[in-house]
C-alpha cells in the first residue's frame, strides 16, 4: 500500500481523532425522545399535538420564510443529521433544498422512501395538478399545489397518517400516539364545526391573491379567486401585470387582497391604494401572526382576519 507512507503524521492523528469521536457519538446522541425535523411550522405544530413530550421537534423554516426558497444552511444539515423523522409538505415544495439536506446529512433513516421521510401532501388529494408540465407556466409543481395547510380538513387527514407513522417509528409508545391522536381529532372536529359556522358570510367572496397559494382555503370556504398578483407562480409581480389585474378588477370586482406573511407586500399595497380594497395578511402557517400560536390559533386568526375585512 503506497498510500500509507505517503500520508503525513497529521493525517493519521486526525483520522484517530475522527474515529474516537465517532465511537463516542452514540453516547452524546443518546436521546429518549423521537427527533423530528419539520420542514414547515404547521407540521411542527401537528407533530407536537400528536407526540407531545415523546418528540423533540426542530422547525426548519419560519412563517416569515418562503418555503420554496430556503437555503440548505449548516444548521439545517446538523439538525437533519440526527433526525429520526422528517415531516415535510412534499409535492416539490422543498425541492430546492430538501433533497440536498437528505443527500448531505449522512442519515440513512430520513432518505426518500424510508419510514423516516413523511410527506404530508402524499396523504391528501391535491388541487391544480397541471395538465401540462412547462416552465413557461412558471414554477409549477408536477403533483399539484403543495400549500395544503390552509385547509383544516386536509390537516385532519395528515394527522391520521402522521400518528400512524409516529407509532410505526416509536412502537413502544404506539398506544400513546393513538390516544393523543384521538384526543386531537376530537378537538379538531369540534373546532372545524365552529369555523365552518362562523365562515358562512365568506362563501362566494371574490378575492385577489398574491401567490397561487390559497386554493385549499378557497375550496374549503368557497372563496372565488378573481386574479393573482404573480403573473406566473414564482414570478414576481410586474407593473404591467399589476395594471392588467387592475383592469380585471374593474370588470370583476373583488372584496379583498390576500397574501401570506412571508410575501413581499409592495404589489398588494400598490393594488390596494388604487382599488381601496383591504389587504388581508394571513398568517398562512403557525407563527405567521401573534394569534397563530398553534394550529387552532392559525385557523381562528385566519377566519377572524377574513371576516374583519368583509365587515360592512
Amino acid at each position, binding site marked *: 500500500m*503506497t*498510500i500509507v507512507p505517503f500520508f503525513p503524521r497529521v493525517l493519521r492523528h486526525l483520522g484517530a481523532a475522527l474515529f474516537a469521536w465517532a465511537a463516542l457519538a452514540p453516547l452524546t446522541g443518546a436521546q429518549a425522545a423521537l427527533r423530528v425535523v419539520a420542514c414547515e411550522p404547521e407540521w411542527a405544530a401537528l407533530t407536537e399535538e400528536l407526540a407531545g413530550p415523546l418528540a423533540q421537534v426542530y422547525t426548519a423554516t419560519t412563517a416569515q420564510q418562503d418555503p420554496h426558497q430556503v437555503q440548505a444552511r449548516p444548521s439545517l444539515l446538523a439538525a437533519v443529521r440526527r433526525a429520526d423523522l422528517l415531516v415535510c409538505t412534499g409535492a416539490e415544495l422543498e425541492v*430546492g433544498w430538501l433533497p440536498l439536506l437528505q443527500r448531505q446529512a449522512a442519515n440513512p433513516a430520513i*432518505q426518500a422512501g424510508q419510514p423516516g421521510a413523511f410527506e404530508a401532501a402524499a396523504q391528501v388529494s391535491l388541487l391544480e*395538478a397541471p395538465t401540462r408540465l412547462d416552465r413557461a407556466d412558471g414554477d409549477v409543481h408536477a403533483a399539484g399545489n403543495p400549500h395544503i395547510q390552509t*385547509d383544516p380538513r386536509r390537516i385532519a387527514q395528515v394527522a391520521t397518517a402522521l400518528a400512524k407513522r409516529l407509532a410505526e417509528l416509536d412502537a413502544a409508545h404506539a398506544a400513546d400516539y393513538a390516544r393523543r391522536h384521538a384526543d386531537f381529532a376530537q378537538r379538531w372536529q369540534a373546532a372545524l364545526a365552529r369555523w365552518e359556522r362562523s365562515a358562512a358570510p365568506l362563501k362566494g367572496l371574490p378575492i385577489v391573491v398574491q401567490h397561487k397559494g390559497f386554493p385549499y382555503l378557497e375550496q374549503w370556504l368557497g372563496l372565488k379567486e378573481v386574479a393573482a398578483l404573480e403573473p406566473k407562480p414564482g414570478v414576481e409581480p410586474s407593473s404591467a401585470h399589476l395594471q392588467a389585474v387592475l383592469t380585471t378588477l374593474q370588470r370583476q370586482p373583488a372584496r379583498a387582497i390576500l397574501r401570506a406573511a412571508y410575501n413581499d407586500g409592495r404589489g398588494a399595497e400598490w393594488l390596494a391604494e388604487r382599488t381601496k380594497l383591504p389587504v388581508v395578511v394571513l398568517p398562512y402557517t403557525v407563527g405567521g401572526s401573534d394569534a397563530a400560536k398553534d394550529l387552532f390559533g392559525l385557523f381562528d386568526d385566519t377566519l377572524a382576519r377574513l371576516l374583519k375585512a368583509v365587515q360592512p
Partner: protein
Amino acid sequence: MSIFSVLGASRSGRGPLAAALILAVPLALSSAARAADAATAAAPSATAAGQGFNPAVSLILSGGYSQLQRDPASWRLPGFLTGGDVGPGSRGFSLGESELALTANIDPAFYGALYLAASDAGVSVEEAYAQTTALPDGFTLKMGRFLSGLGYLNEQHAHAWTFVDAPLAYQAFLGGQRREDGLQLRWLAPTDLFLELGAEVGSGRTYPGADTARNGAGAWSLFGHTGGDVGANHSWRAGLSLLQAQPRGRASTGVDASGTTVTDAFSGRSRTWGVDAVWKWAPDGNGARRQLTLQGEWLRRSERGTLTHDVDGTAGSANTDAYRSTQSGGYLQAAWRWHPAWQVGLRQDWLRVGHTDAGSNTAALEATRGNPSRSSLLLDWSPSHFSRVRLQLAQDRSRTAALSGTDAGRSDRQLMLQYQMSLGAHGAHGY
C-alpha cells in the same frame, strides 16, 4: 402502510378506484376522517420519483459577451506557476459551457451523478461520482470524479457562484476550480453546531498536481467546516482546508525575463492551506427577498522541489535547479440582494508573490514588481428561479505586476455580460 400500498395498487393497474377504497378503510376508522368531505378524500397522488426510473435531467445553458481592454493572450499572473483553467476568457461573443446533469438514487445505498460540460473544445466530464446514502454514524463516501470539498467556492458549480469567474487566488493555486479523481470520505458530527470533517485521496492529476504515472495517491486533502445560525436573521459557515500534491513535470506556460513565452516544469511537493468564511444576513431569514452575503477565502501555498526552466528550449536551453516558493492570496466579497430578482456584488482579489528561490533559474524567470490584484463589480438579474443574466465590470491589475512581456505594467478593464438558463429538473443549491 397506507401510502405505499395505495401506490402499489394504482401502479399494478387496479386503478385509482381500488386505491381510494384501500385508503378509505383506515380513514373510516378515524374520527378525524369524518371531518374530511368528498372533496379532500380522493386517492392521494403518487410521489413523483423523477419520471419512472429515469434520472433527473437538468441542463444549464450559458453564454455571453466580453469586452477586454487588453489581449487575453497576454494575460498571466507574473511570479506564479499557473495551470488549469485560468484567465479572463476570450473577447467578444462566446458560447460558455453547456452543462448537462443526470442524477438519481442508484439503490437504497447509493446516489449517482454525472455532470458533462460541452463546449467547442469537446465534451468534458465535470463530475461523475457515486455517493453513499446509507452509511451509519454520519459518514458519506464519494467515489469517482468530484469537485474537491476544499474551501467554500470550490465545491459549488461555477454557475452558482456570485461572480462570473473564479477569484484570482483560485486561479493561481487551484487552477480555477479543483476536481479530483478518487475517494472522498466525510463525517458529519452529531452535534447542534454543524461540524463536518472530510478527507480526499486521488490521482492528483489536476493542478496543482500533475500526472504522476505511478500507483497510489498523487494528492490528498483534508477539510473541516463548521457553521450555524445566530438568531433567525444570521447564518454562517467557516472552514479550514489542506491540500497536498506531488506533481511530476507540471507544466506552466508564462513569460521569462526577456519577455519570451516559455514553459517551465515543476516537480516536487505542493502544499496549500485554505481558510474560508461566509456570513449571511437576511431579515427574518427570508433570503429570497433581501440578503447580504459576506464571504472571504485565503489560500497559502508552499512548493518545494525542482524547476526545469524553458523545457522546450524556446528561449535558449532548458535548465533544472532547486525551487522553493511560498505564496498566498485571497478575496473578500459582499453581495446585496435588495429585490427577489436583483443583486449587486463587490469583490476584491489579491495575490502575494511572496518568496521564491529558484537557484540558477532566478535570473531567467519573469521579474515582478508588486502583486497582482483585481476589483470587480457585479449586477445580477434573475427574473425567475431558472434564469439569470449578470454583468461584471472589473479592473484587473494582474499584468501591472509584470516587468517584462506584452502589456507589462498595464491594468485591464473588463466587461463581462453573461446569461445562464436552467432547464429541466429543479436544481438544489447548497449554502
